């Protein structure tokens, strides 16, 4: 796919297109994505027992409404759920053939080059130096393009609020991080399935865990490269598509796909007027030439 895009750009004058590449795409070319010193969370699915303490902690930390079913009600896990405006994180259980079920916690992955942020027409999302992708409701117009853009289907919308609807999603407890604390879910996890730390160090730790128990894990850290890398990283005993993580997204940040297209616009602005104006002048010239002999006759 990438190749076709590049060929396509090349065919239409890619040389000029390079002039206007947005910041994110240029970063992608140099291979330095996100902020190297940023924090993230390593989520080890082989340790998660599906107790939903993280859900409860998130609910309390964000002052969210009480859930329909209590946090200690295990029947919730019988069907797959997604994040909503009143649950920024949910734990799902994925049954496996001939193996114990695997649980996975869903929340914003805090992408290094967030598709949601690149999509927003008012720039309501910010990728912070600390790693969180945070949202500013004072700017949001409610077009919901961020929800279309997010490859993990994370942002939710307050559809039932007629006056001040907001996009809702996990904030990585940005305020807590700034105050030197860990995200509420990480602190609540009794199994230490969630580890908070510098992203680079978490990657290191993830590789060590695979090396120490190679038979326990799939030999891949999800989030190291997916869509340009995410600050939330996963280790799993089973293939990632069996726990609902998309594996067809590629390693290129999604904003590179739209960025390549947007970088064309200056070309259109530069070439179209010249071409169209030229056509018109040519047409007028022809018309005048056609008229002259008649007038003379």
């Amino acid at each position: 796919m990438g190749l076709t895009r590049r060929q396509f750009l090349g065919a239409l004058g890619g040389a000029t297109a390079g002039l206007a590449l947005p910041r994110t795409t240029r970063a992608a070319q140099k291979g330095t994505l996100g902020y190297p010193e940023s924090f993230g969370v390593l989520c080890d699915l082989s340790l998660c027992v599906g107790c939903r303490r993280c859900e409860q902690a998130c609910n309390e930390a964000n002052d969210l409404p009480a859930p329909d079913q209590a946090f200690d009600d295990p029947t919730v896990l019988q069907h797959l759920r997604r994040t909503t405006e009143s649950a920024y994180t949910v734990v799902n259980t994925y049954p496996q053939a001939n193996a114990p079920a695997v649980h996975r916690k869903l929340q914003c992955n805090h992408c290094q080059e967030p598709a949601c942020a690149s999509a927003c027409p008012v720039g309501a999302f910010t990728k912070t130096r600390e790693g969180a992708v945070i949202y500013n409701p004072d700017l949001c117009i409610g077009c919901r393009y961020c929800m279309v853009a997010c490859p993990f289907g994370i942002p939710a919308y307050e559809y039932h609020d007629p006056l001040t609807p907001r996009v809702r999603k996990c904030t990585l407890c940005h305020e807590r991080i700034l105050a030197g604390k860990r995200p509420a879910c990480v602190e609540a996890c009794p199994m230490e399935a969630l580890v908070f730390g510098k992203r680079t160090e978490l990657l290191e730790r993830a590789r060590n865990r695979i090396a120490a128990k190679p038979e326990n894990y799939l030999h891949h850290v999800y989030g190291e490269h997916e869509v340009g890398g995410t600050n939330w990283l996963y280790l799993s005993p089973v293939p990632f598509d069996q726990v609902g993580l998309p594996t067809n997204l590629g390693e290129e940040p999604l904003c590179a796909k739209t960025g390549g297209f947007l970088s064309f616009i200056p070309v259109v602005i530069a070439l179209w007027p010249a071409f169209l104006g030229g056509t018109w002048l040519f047409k007028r010239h022809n018309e005048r030439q056609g008229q002259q002999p008649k007038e003379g006759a």
Partner: protein
Amino acid sequence: MSQTAPTTCWIKDKLFFGLGAREYLRSLLTPFNAVAAMILLAGGVAAVVRFGQGLGTATNLSHDNPWGLWIGFDLLCGVALAAGGYVISSTVYLFGLKAYQPIVRPAILTAFLGYAFVVLALLFDLGRPWRLPYPFVVQAGFSSVMFEVAVCVATYCTVLFVEATPPAFEWLGWRKLRAVILHLTIPLTILGVILSTMHQSSLGGLFLIAPGKLHPLWYSPYLPVFFFISSIIAGLSMIVVEGSLSHRALHHRADPGTDFDALTIGLARAGAIVMFSYFALKILGVISDGNWTYLPTAYGSWFLVEVLGFVLVPCLLFASAARNRRPRQVKLAALLSVLGVVLNRLNVSLVAFNWQLPCEQRYFPSWMELAVTLSIILLIVLVFRSAALRMPILRPDPTYPEHP
């Protein structure tokens, strides 16, 4: 009666076709208007619910399906079907095909109404519609395709408004202003083509960010090119469809000197060429991305219905109609290709979008969404009709020279 005040007289002449108020109101009691009133009533109810209770009550939108009919049809199809404006004005003013002059005005008016009502639909769809100007006045998201669409649609709407004023000025008798606008024709046309190129393609570009959600047969790095070329098809075909409808419905207002059927033959020739290249590109896109393996699936069949039934078939119909000079066949082909563009936009935004989600999480519009969409289509028709009945749209006003 001879003492009527000048304003009453003006209203009677200009708005009521010289009828008295009562006679005029009675002339409005037609079956068409009765159906129209019912649709508008339903749309009004939907509007009250939408703005009173929020999007959640009025629509079937969800966290998984953030865009529904109002984006898929009202925005995407609305903008594509309004492409006749830039297509025909560039043909006539820039490329010099003067024969098409008589259809410029209806095409520009349709385009302007189309865009104006796209903006109205957006006000329904945005969570906080009163913040519509935020991208321009508060903070601009330069990396966003949506931002680009917003800039172009806003600017082009203004351009179309200006381009659509001359008939209104003739109707009002404002000669000076009309002359000023006519002097601007060429720059406005060029601006119109640039803006249209940009936002027609950007509407396809919106979906470039979602490769994981849009079915591979519809997702392509060429999406912007597909949307742009098919907008030309939509523009050409809409001119034929809307032209034949208005010439039939409003034939007493049409210009007896214009042979609309003859013009459609030329449009058919252009349509056949553009559609064939669109068809070839669509096929090429599928092959170059190696997605032909999806063809023997249900989505594959649906893709073939779109590309064969609503692109290749009308393309061939256009070609043979142009060759054998059969205006009726042109109209059929135009209708099919208009439907084809609508089908394509709905496929990209709704049918093939979220294709991996289980059935019960897929989107289908609510009656209120349908009512708003139908009301908007109807309003376009009604405003077009009342303008064409009063202003020199379908035929020139003989008291005005063609050039200022």
